[in-house]
Each structure stands twice: as C-alpha cells, then as structure tokens.
C-alpha cells in the first residue's frame, strides 16, 4: 500500500512542527525520516498513524483520504521508542492483543490466534520467551516483541518511531540489520524515524532528511550522501570543517576556517570538507595548502583522528588512515600542511 501526505501543517502553540510537508511512500518501500530533534519527523509519523491530527493537509492510503480516520481504524502497526509493551501481560498476550480485540465476526478462532502468535514469535526469534513478562526481557528483546505485536494485526503499513533509540550501540547495529532482512522478507510498506544518519543510510531504501518542519532532501542513501542538496544535509550526514572559499572557473579555493557564526562577505562562499577528505603532508601540496599545527591525535579506531590548529587558533578536524599516519610519523606539536581532497560549496 502506498502512503501520501499532502501539504501537512501542524503547530503546537506557537511552535510550527510541520510546515506544508508533502511526502509519498511507495508500496513495499522502507523509508527513513531523518532529522535532528524538533525537525518534525516524529510528528509526521504520528500523523500518518492517526495518533496526531494535522491542522491542515491530508493523509492518503492507496489514494483514499484517511485524514479523519482514528488510529483504531487505520490498520497501521506502530512501534514506539520505549517499546510500550503492556507490562501486566506476558509476551504471548502482548502479541495476541491486536488479534483478541477484533470485533467478534472478524476475530480468528482461538487456535488460529495461537498459531499466528507463535508464528510471529518465531519470526522475531523469541518463541521461547512467550510466557515471560516484559520486565524480564532485555531492551533488544522487548523491541522485537513490540515489532511482533505490531505485525500481528497484518498492518497495511509499519511505522517505527526511533525503534532503536533506547538501545546500546552494539544491539542497535544488530537489530537494524535484522530489521532490513525482515523487511526484505515481508515487504510491508514501512516508515521509520531516526536521528542517527548511519542508521538511516544503512537500513532505508530511501532517506527523507527533515529540518525545522520541512523536508530538505529525499533520495536514495547514495544520493543524499554523495549529492547533498544543501549545506544542512551535508552537515547533518557527517562531521564537517567549514572554510571561507572563493570560486574561480568552477574550482573552489579555501582560505581560513570559519569560526563561530559564518558570515560570508565580499564574494566569499562557504566550503564544507569532511574530516576524512583532508590530506595531511609534511610539504605544502597543491591545491592551496594551509599551514597548521598538530594539537591532538587519537589513533584508537579504524581511522586516526587528528586535531589541527591554524596560526590564528582555528581548529580543523582531519581523519587519516593508519598507514598514512605511520608514513608521516605524526606527533603532537608538529607543523604540517593540510589540503582538502574534495570540497562542497553551497
């Protein structure tokens, strides 16, 4: 089933959470709504679910206007950041809930419900915990139960609100790969909200970057990462160094880094450079090298993180490979040169 949001506006008091946002999600797609907190991504998700209602605009499921339908009748599966499992019910009863509250004539017979619940618990690999209570489960297990519970009613669309936000880093990574595999298996139209760019880029078919109640860019993970539409998207998808730059004949020449509030003046533009796209050398290289001093080195991790400072004291972050680090024999307080390999100018 495809989902369409048309010109959705939602305000809370004087705060504009969504400002005429339109979004279309195709059937079977897995879309990530990515943005900082307050960007309106969760509000948009809750409006699609029917847990929140827009001030103006409409929500369409398969072309049918569902704006005025309650959450109860929309047939969506919703997974909450903090699981929202029914604490007084066993895992089995949690998953069975959606099936047992159906109207009598739509309800499956007892035996069928039982079979369906066990089938779902097997799908999330937790059948052995059926008689446990939520408080006896780990965070990762709870979120998988929540997912099984949402899938039990065979939702036409699955909505996940920061599903891995409350889990620790290792479990997050495992669970998001697992979610990707699960989606490839069951192909239910899914939207998930996250503020973690890595998560969005890894899991989603399509990423929608939001900021300040508006959509900044939507596209495949490759598109938004390599062809960011604007400075916000580039900035949000990774760390950056910001430089004053001048553009001549389609080439950008950087001068000194921007510190504090960037104010472009006299034809200056702003140039964005990712730390791992900074070259460090002992000798001045082309194009436009910048003399800097090594302030701090952190070599724990796949890349060596080097903090550099210009003569004026402006900081620049660089990341180089361990091989390059060995080659340069870099030490703190060394004087070196940096030059960007790739510059984005907006």
């Amino acid at each position: 089933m495809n989902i369409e949001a048309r010109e959705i506006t939602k305000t809370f008091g004087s705060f504009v959470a969504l400002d005429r946002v339109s979004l279309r999600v195709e059937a079977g797609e897995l879309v990530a709504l990515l943005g900082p907190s307050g960007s309106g991504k969760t509000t948009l998700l809750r409006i699609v679910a029917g847990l929140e209602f827009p001030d103006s605009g409409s929500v369409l499921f398969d072309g049918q206007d569902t704006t005025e339908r309650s959450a109860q009748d929309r047939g969506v599966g919703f997974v909450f950041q903090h699981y929202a499992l029914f604490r007084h019910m066993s895992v089995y009863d949690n998953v069975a809930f959606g099936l047992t509250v159906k109207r009598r004539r739509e309800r499956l017979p007892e035996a069928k419900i039982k079979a369906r619940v066990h089938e779902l618990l097997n799908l999330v690999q937790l059948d052995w915990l059926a008689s446990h209570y939520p408080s006896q489960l780990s965070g990762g297990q709870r979120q998988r139960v929540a997912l099984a519970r949402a899938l039990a009613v065979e939702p036409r669309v699955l909505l996940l609100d920061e599903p891995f936000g409350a889990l620790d880093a290792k479990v997050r990574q495992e669970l998001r790969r697992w979610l990707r595999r699960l989606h490839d298996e069951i192909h239910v139209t899914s939207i998930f909200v996250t503020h973690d760019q890595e998560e969005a880029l890894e899991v989603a078919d399509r990423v929608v970057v939001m900021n300040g109640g508006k959509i900044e860019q939507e596209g495949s993970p490759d598109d938004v990462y390599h062809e960011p539409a604007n400075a916000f998207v580039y900035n949000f998808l990774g760390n950056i160094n910001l430089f004053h730059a001048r553009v001549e004949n389609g080439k950008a020449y950087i001068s000194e880094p921007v510190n504090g509030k960037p104010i472009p003046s006299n034809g200056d533009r702003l140039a964005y450079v990712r730390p791992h796209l900074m070259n460090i050398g002992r000798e001045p290289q082309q194009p436009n090298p910048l003399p800097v001093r090594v302030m701090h080195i952190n070599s724990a991790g796949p890349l060596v993180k080097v903090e550099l400072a210009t003569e004026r004291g402006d900081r620049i972050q660089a990341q180089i490979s361990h091989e390059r680090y060995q080659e340069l024999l870099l030490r703190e307080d060394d004087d070196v040169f940096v030059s960007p390999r790739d510059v984005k100018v907006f």
Partner: protein
Amino acid sequence: MATTVLTPTTLRAPATARRAARQDPALVRNGLIVVGLCFLGLFLILPLAAVFANALSAGCAAYWAAIRQPDALSAVRLTLLAALIAVPLNLVFGLAASWCMARFDFAGKELLLTLIDIPFTVSPVISGMIFVLLFGAQGLFGDWLLNHNIKIVFAAPGIILATVFVTFPFVTRELIPTMLALGSDEEQAALTLGASGWRTFFRITLPNIKWSLLYGVILCNARAMGEFGAVSVVSGHIRGLTNTMPLYVEILYNDYQFAPAFAIASLLAMLALVTLVAKSIVEWKSERDLAASAAGAGDNR
C-alpha cells in the same frame, strides 16, 4: 606479591573508624528511637487502647447492648449508606477527573486541579455550611425545595452530599501521579492495534492503575465513614434519623453515657484498623508490581 599479616589491633582500628563514619553515636541513635517510640505510644497506641478499655468497662453484655440499641443501629446504617453512595460516586468522578488531567492539556488545567483540592483546604464545617446556605430553609434553593417537598438539609440527602464533597479529592489525588508516571504510550499502542477506547481502558489502563485506585478508594472510604464536621452541620442531630456513627458518639458522650459512647467509638476504631491493614496490603502489592516493572525498565540490554 607481598603478604601482610594483619594483627588484631590493625584490624580493629579501621573497622571502628569505618563504623563511626557510617553511624551516628549510640546516644543519638538510641535517644531518637526512644523519642519516636514514646510519641507513637502516647499519641497512637494509648488512645486506641483507651477506646477499647472504656468500651468494655461495663462488661461485654453492656457493650453488646449499646451496639444493639435501635439508635445505634440506625447510626451505623446511615454511615454505611453515606459511604456506599459517596465512595462509588467519587470513584467514578476521580477516574474521570484524573484521566482528564493526566491525558490532556487544556487551558485552566491548574485551576481545575485547585478546585478539586478545595475539600482538602476548606474546613469541613465550612463545607457543611455551604450546603445549609444552598439547601437550607433560608438558603438559595430553600423555597423551591420546600414547595416541592424535598428535604436535603437535616436529612439523609444532606449528609450524603456533605460526605461526597469532603471525600471528593482522595481518588483523584492518588491517581494523577500514577497516570502521569505511566504515560500514554501503552494506551496509544492498544489504539493502533485496533482496540476501542473502552477496551483500552479496561484491558490496559485499569490493570496498571488498580493499586493506586484501590488505595484512593480505601482512604476515601475511611474518611467517608469517619467524617464529623461537615456532616454535623447538615445533620440536625435527630436521633435514629440523621445521626451517623461519629455524631452518635458525640451525643452519647455529651449525655455522660461513656461506656456506650466508647462502644460505638470502638466500631470506628476497628474500621480504622481494617483500613490500615488493607492499606498496607495494597501498598505492599503495588510496590511489588512497581519494582517488577522498574527492574525491567532500567535495563536496556
């Protein structure tokens, strides 16, 4: 690795030092305990014992006779009737009010909360006066009530009204913090799974708030049966008709009938003891449930 042989003195010295750091001197500790126990004995246990001692001072037969007096039985009946009406009413009001306060944001919410608290802040005598001023013969609706031959003040309806008013905040006050702490995620989850509002309430909300609700009901009931001030103003003290148990105790006492007065008082004291036991059981059960869910919530493996 070097081994150090600890002599008894080197062992003992740090141990006492450690204890001194964790505890106050014995004099302070024991002194506070004695003060606490004295206070407890003087103000709680001694009066309770005195009630039962005085009640039985004329013997068991007299005790039994005092309770079986028609006026006494009528007072018990009226007290039970008032509680039987006030408690369920306030259970429903309390649920509705706390649902409204905990789940919705609206203008005037603080004002509503203050209004709900009025029975706690206003003297019960004033509460009683309000009803006399409204429904009494000289009151606002006095003429109309008289013309339609409806008696409220100096009759059972007035006593029930006063009881409902005085016990109004108990359930709400217990429920609001619980419902706020629970949040509405589980209810929203039930909704998205296709449950109706009523089903969500009975299957999700009610099981989660049941202990707080019961706790509120117990306190509400204890106050409903024990209320004196407000009820005293609206009752008119007509023996066998508009006396509740606390009022009847006062009348007997003023008539120098000490043993019967204490006999009825002992019934109220027993009610208090039953309430205490029920309250402890509910507290123990709800804490156990809370600990179970908290143990899970804190851990995000």
